């Protein structure tokens, strides 16, 4: 029996639009392991945010989960599974409890998440009351503890109004609020987007610190590869509503298998890369209402062959059992698209020999 | 010849598209149809139905029946015929007053927003003073001194009183558009003030201006009915006059005469309602996103 925190099977989510159904998430299988940091990376419209919203079932009314199951497991102190349930089958009341006690989500727009006329203390009070959690002095103590963890000055923040805090501080308050009921899983949507470099660095350090101390599972959604490189244990690359590559962070960056992942890595210049090594992925992200046939990446893929246009590849093990990719030509992809990295690997292999 | 055919075909396509967009919003569509029917009744109806010219003393204040579908008035005239003949004037005044009010408001608002600084302050102060005057009383007092014998005079009169609040709204719309990046880009390209005002800003305000136009039309209908009711505007047998006469001839104390009050009132209410409902679908018509069907 699997002992992952969350097991997603065949999750399919559609949005109703005037032109037709937007296929945002198309039959995803994904596991969130205990205490791991899993990054969902992809471009806007890839469906990564919808997956996050689907897990906590906070989708807008035009979205529908058409199939799938989301098995969540609560663990006891000894590490044994205490309770196992399908999030999609929870009653509204159970769902409310699930959202804070089992799995908290912090959204992208950090300012809009707050009620502007309430002090931070009141926002904590409301959340705690809704879940019959601590109140009064005990709640304040707990909040101060969390503020310390996210490196905020408790005295200053507790009595502040949201607008008195900077963007980075608000983001950290939200993370603290998410952790109030000590959930075993936290979902962050674009945790550092729209923040300045130094603030981003601070949030990343806070998150690393928190994970070490509290050992929760972290799922974060981002278009920023370097954030994933910094924080994640595993990376799921999402394209057109599907996971196209899944693997440990080192494997994914040093030995990417899917042409899209390779394309993304090549498309993002870093401080150390030479200008000539950077190149865009041709074309633009697909129209989710009118998806291409076969592999959804084939119109942009330099390796596409006839088969790619006809059949959509499944996620299969590649270089190792833990490193999966959904591509018919994964074996050649890196060789052709990332020659320098492939050479370096060959050199390493020779040296080891 | 060929370009003309093309133009006509284009026009036809656009018209169909516009009708489809109106139909998207149920409420707006109902309003549109209702408005069309009222206009048809008031402008085509009088060509078909002979007006009531003589009084019939034997048939005063009859309730609705087969012989008199909507009852009769204090002179024994058919209410339905009066209804058909009493609409044109109300609609004309409403339309003219609405258009004039909107023109004044757009010019004042646009100038104020575009000039900015001291000129803006001055114009807005005048607007505020105008806005603060007790307009109901002013309307009555002025109407007493100015003779308002025709539709144009009344419309102009109403618009002189109606523009300030709309001018303020137009100004704030212009101010917000002025900061848009595409307006900034047009400034950088030195496309000139007329281009920026009429090509960049105005098209994006059309739905807003049309809704404002309809608002001022409804305002004009209220004001004119009010003046007619008070006997300050003495023309025609329009709905307002009919209502006023029925009231003056004690219809309110006579259950049989109810219809004489309700019929002209119904005309006014339906006209207002159709305009307000129709304005709901205007936003969709002018939204290019909806026009191209995405």
């Amino acid at each position, binding site marked *: 029996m699997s002992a992952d925190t969350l097991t997603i099977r065949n999750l399919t989510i559609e949005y109703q639009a005037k032109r037709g159904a937007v296929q945002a998430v198309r039959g995803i299988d994904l596991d969130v392991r205990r205490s791991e940091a899993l990054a969902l990376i992809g*471009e*806007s419209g890839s469906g990564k945010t919808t997956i996050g919203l689907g897990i906590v079932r906070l989708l807008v009314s035009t979205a529908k989960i058409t199939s799938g199951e989301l098995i969540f497991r609560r663990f006891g102190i000894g590490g044994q599974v205490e309770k196992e349930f399908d999030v999609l089958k929870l009653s509204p009341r159970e769902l409310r409890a699930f959202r804070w006690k089992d799995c908290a989500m912090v959204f992208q727009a950090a300012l809009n998440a707050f009620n502007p006329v309430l002090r931070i203390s009141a926002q904590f009070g409301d959340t705690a009351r809704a879940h019959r959690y601590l109140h009064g002095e005990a709640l304040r103590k707990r909040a101060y503890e969390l503020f310390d963890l996210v*490196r905020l000055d408790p005295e200053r923040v507790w009595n502040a109004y949201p607008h008195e805090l900077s963007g980075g501080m608000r983001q950290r308050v939200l993370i603290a609020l998410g952790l109030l009921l000590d959930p075993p899983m936290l979902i962050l949507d674009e945790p550092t987007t729209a923040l*300045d*470099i*130094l603030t*981003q*660095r*601070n949030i*990343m350090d806070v998150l690393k610190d928190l994970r070490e101390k509290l050992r929760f599972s972290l799922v974060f959604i981002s*278009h*920023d*590869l*370097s*954030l*994933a*490189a*910094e924080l*994640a244990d595993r990376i799921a690359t999402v394209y057109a509503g599907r996971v196209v590559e899944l693997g440990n*962070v*080192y494997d994914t*960056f*040093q030995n990417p298998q899917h042409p899209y992942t390779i*394309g*993304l*890595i090549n*498309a*993002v*210049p*870093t*401080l*150390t*890369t030479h*200008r000539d090594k*950077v*190149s*865009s*992925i*041709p074309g*633009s*992200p697909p129209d989710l209402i009118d998806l291409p046939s076969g592999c959804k990446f084939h119109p942009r893929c330099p390796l596409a062959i006839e088969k790619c246009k006809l059949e959509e590849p499944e996620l299969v093990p590649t270089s190792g059992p833990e490193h999966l990719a959904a591509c018919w030509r994964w074996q050649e992809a890196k060789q052709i698209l990332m020659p320098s990295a492939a050479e370096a690997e060959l050199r390493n292999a020779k040296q080891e020999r | 010849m060929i370009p003309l055919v093309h133009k006509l075909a284009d026009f036809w396509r656009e018209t169909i598209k516009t009708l489809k967009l109106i139909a998207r919003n149920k409420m707006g569509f109902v309003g549109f149809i209702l408005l069309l029917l009222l206009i048809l009744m008031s402008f085509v109806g009088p060509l078909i139905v002979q007006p009531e010219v003589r009084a019939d003393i034997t048939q005063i204040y009859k309730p609705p029946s087969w012989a008199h579908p909507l009852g009769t008035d204090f002179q024994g005239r058919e209410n339905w015929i009066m209804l058909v003949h009493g609409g044109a004037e109300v609609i004309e005044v409403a339309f003219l007053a609405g258009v004039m009010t909107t023109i004044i408001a757009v010019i004042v608002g646009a100038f104020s927003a575009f000039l900015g600084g001291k000129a803006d302050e001055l114009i807005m102060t005048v607007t505020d003073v105008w806005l603060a005057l007790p307009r109901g009383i002013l309307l009555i007092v002025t109407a007493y001194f100015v003779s308002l014998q025709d539709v144009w005079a009344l419309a102009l009169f109403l618009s002189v009183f109606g523009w300030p609040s709309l001018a303020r709204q137009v100004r704030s719309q212009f101010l917000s558009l002025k900061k*848009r*990046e*595409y307006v*900034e*880009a047009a400034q*950088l*390209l*030195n*496309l000139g003030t007329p*281009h920026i005002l009429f*090509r*960049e800003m105005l*098209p*994006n305000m059309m739905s807003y201006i049309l809704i404002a136009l309809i608002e001022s039309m409804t305002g004009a209908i209220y004001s004119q009915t009010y003046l007619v009711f008070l006997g300050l505007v003495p023309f025609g047998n329009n709905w307002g006059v009919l209502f006023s006469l029925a009231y003056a001839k004690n219809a309110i104390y006579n259950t049989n005469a109810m219809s004489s009050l309700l019929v002209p009132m119904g005309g006014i209410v339906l006209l207002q309602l159709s305009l307000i409902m129709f304005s709901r679908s205007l936003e969709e018509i*002018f939204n*290019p*996103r909806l026009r*191209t069907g*995405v």
Partner: protein
Amino acid sequence: MNTPLIELKHLTRRFQVKRNVFITAVNDVSLSLNPGEIVCLVGESGCGKTTTGKMMAGLLKPSEGQILYNGQDLAQLEGEAWKRYRLGVQMIHQDPYASLNPSHTIYDIVSAPLRHHRITNGEKETRAAAIELLENVDLTPAADLLDKFPHQLSGGQRQRVSVARALTVSPKFIIADEAVSMVDVSIRISLLNTLLKLKDKNGLAVLFITHDLALAKYFAWEGRIGVMYLGKLVEVAPAQQLVAAPQHPYTKVLLSAIPEADPERTRHKPRIELRSMDVPSLLRLPSGCAFHPRCPYFAGEKCEKVIPELTHFVDGSAVACHPVRAQRAAEIVDERAR
């Protein structure tokens, strides 16, 4: 010596926030660009980079200082000379959704300046020119796009239309304000490459404003990067040099804080910690060097009291920092000799 295309001389811009309360968004900035040169202006939000760009584009008037275009003071330009400047400097905005008029087709957008300035005559010529412009910014098939509305295009395509629109008047200088930050990651580079191609082809000078240093290094590979902090230009240097060997403490901190898309490298990157995480408010700027309360290399009284000047060094860099100036005293370029 050649006259620079555009030159900022001790440029300052203040904004009134309340009665008698002003903030200084740009503070005594001097910078010049030569024809065909690329400069990236980098900094965090509120550092004044966008305000600097808007002043150069003529959308904001400086409170103090001068902007020279081809050696002539902007404030004195009139008539034809002013028009040459106005069309010579164009801007690409950040938000591709707000920078194109939603009620105009792509053809309307691109043809308006062509017609207004009589660059083309007649419908046929205008249409052909519009197609050529769109092809120039790698929008193909251009003919199919002409009759579309902005909302029917992707963010990247819209941004290309913005570039094409700017090119209608054959500018000499383009200011791109965060022009790719709202475009999908996978296509950012191709958009930048289009700009680089145009720079080579048309001899354009480009000021690229961004918060992303890695992107700045890519774009300004052969140009320069300027780093701003709280309204001040704290360091300017050739792009590769600035990233490889930063001089100003703020630049060093920034570079050490940026994560890299490589887990091995990013997790073992040496970090320089700030003395304080609090960003000072523009309303109450620290005395002396504005960075001193946070500076890891804080060197006492001088940093607290004296505002450091931007000092030019022989290697082409310029830094506004007391300790750096003291250390590199021998390498200082004599201002009067320049």
